[in-house]
């Protein structure tokens, strides 16, 4: 019985993004007595301290939390870096889409369109070579002008910018309200 219960608690700890307090666990597992729950929590803690592996349960912020062990940090950082390679933050994505549909465009224009400063995400896009500088605008301050790169096209499997999904194609997909899901 208590082995089963400790497994339930383990899975709760696993999906919880925040420290899970004994109180909260008791609130969820209403069919179990407080003693049973406390005993099972101890069992789980004991399992991870007596057999230290790649993950551990720490006591923090008034509750329990699964984390990795700090000695594995270097590799985890390496993994996160590798994983990040193919990904863009949503801010960068928004900036990229603004450039794609409005090129050639300046930083001020991008920021105006998005309603937030785009400096940081533009830098990311330049680093990833998805965007390139093509010159300066002949206007006060002579701001740099940006365009999407060749790599941008390859990345999305496009022959040319003409192949970007058109407003009609996308709005057709976006506008209807979903009633089946």
């Amino acid at each position, binding site marked *: 019985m208590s082995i089963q219960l400790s497994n339930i608690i383990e899975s709760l700890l696993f999906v919880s993004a925040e420290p899970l307090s004994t109180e909260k666990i008791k609130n969820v597992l209403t069919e179990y007595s407080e003693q049973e729950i406390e005993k099972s929590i101890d069992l789980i803690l004991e399992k991870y301290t007596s057999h230290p592996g790649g993950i551990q349960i720490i006591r923090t912020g008034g509750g329990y939390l*699964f984390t990795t062990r700090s000695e594995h940090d270097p590799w*985890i950082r390496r993994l996160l870096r590798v994983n990040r390679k193919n990904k863009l*933050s949503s801010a960068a*994505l*928004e900036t990229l889409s*603004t450039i794609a549909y409005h090129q050639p465009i300046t930083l001020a224009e991008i920021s105006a369109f998005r*309603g937030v400063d785009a400096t940081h995400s533009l830098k990311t896009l330049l680093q990833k070579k998805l965007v390139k500088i093509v010159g300066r605008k002949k206007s006060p301050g002579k701001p740099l002008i940006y365009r999407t790169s060749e790599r941008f096209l390859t990345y999305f499997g496009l022959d040319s910018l003409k192949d970007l999904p058109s407003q009609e194609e996308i709005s057709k997909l976006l506008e209807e309200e979903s009633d089946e899901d």
Partner: protein
Amino acid sequence: MNNTGETDSSIGSSEYQVNLDVFQGPLDLLLFLIRKKKIDIHDIPIATITREYLVYLDKKERINLEREAEFLLVAALLIYIKSQMLLPRERLLDDEEDPRQVLVDRLLEYQKIKAACAILRQKEADELPKWKRDVPPPHFMGEELDLTEISLFNLAEAFFILMKKKERENIQIIMGKEYSMEEKMNEIIEFLKENHYLDFTEYFESHTTIEEALVSFFCLLELIKARTVYAIQETLFQTIKVWLRKESRK
């Protein structure tokens, strides 16, 4: 082509009390009828199945234009195949196909997809109760949280959502124009007289509003029903073409 196996067996009315909405589409309905009648999918008695199918369509109560249209198109196809099979074959070409072949191929493929769906549905049920972590552990939270997988859709979506936000700032109300059915029908007939045939997809894409496209679509269905025009899908991926019947071409 001899339609052996055709019978005039009564078309049961009570057995078809199911709502049309339970079917995913015309092919789903056809498969249902085929199984119900224990028909060999490779040798479909077209006259029987067409009759059954039409009886079924008559049973529907509520009209959902969009779905109805798709059911009616297949009805048109069935009727077309039936007429092809009744035609006296004067010159039999060597490579002439059974007119039913197009339908049989579609049904077989659709049947396969349906079966795969049943298996995938089970897999979905197996996977849903397994929970995954969707957040990095708190220790690394500061690094980069809002990661998004990027696809062409995401890119375009991001832009158009941005556009919509902007649009909301100055909302415009577009008034629906009134389209008369009669006018539209004449327009379609005139178009057909001039252009020999009408490409379904192209024709509808040329419409500026959804309302106009819907009215045209409805008109086209009316014209098919009135046997003024007929619609054919020649092979699987070709678009549907609409032709004016000879007797109407004057």
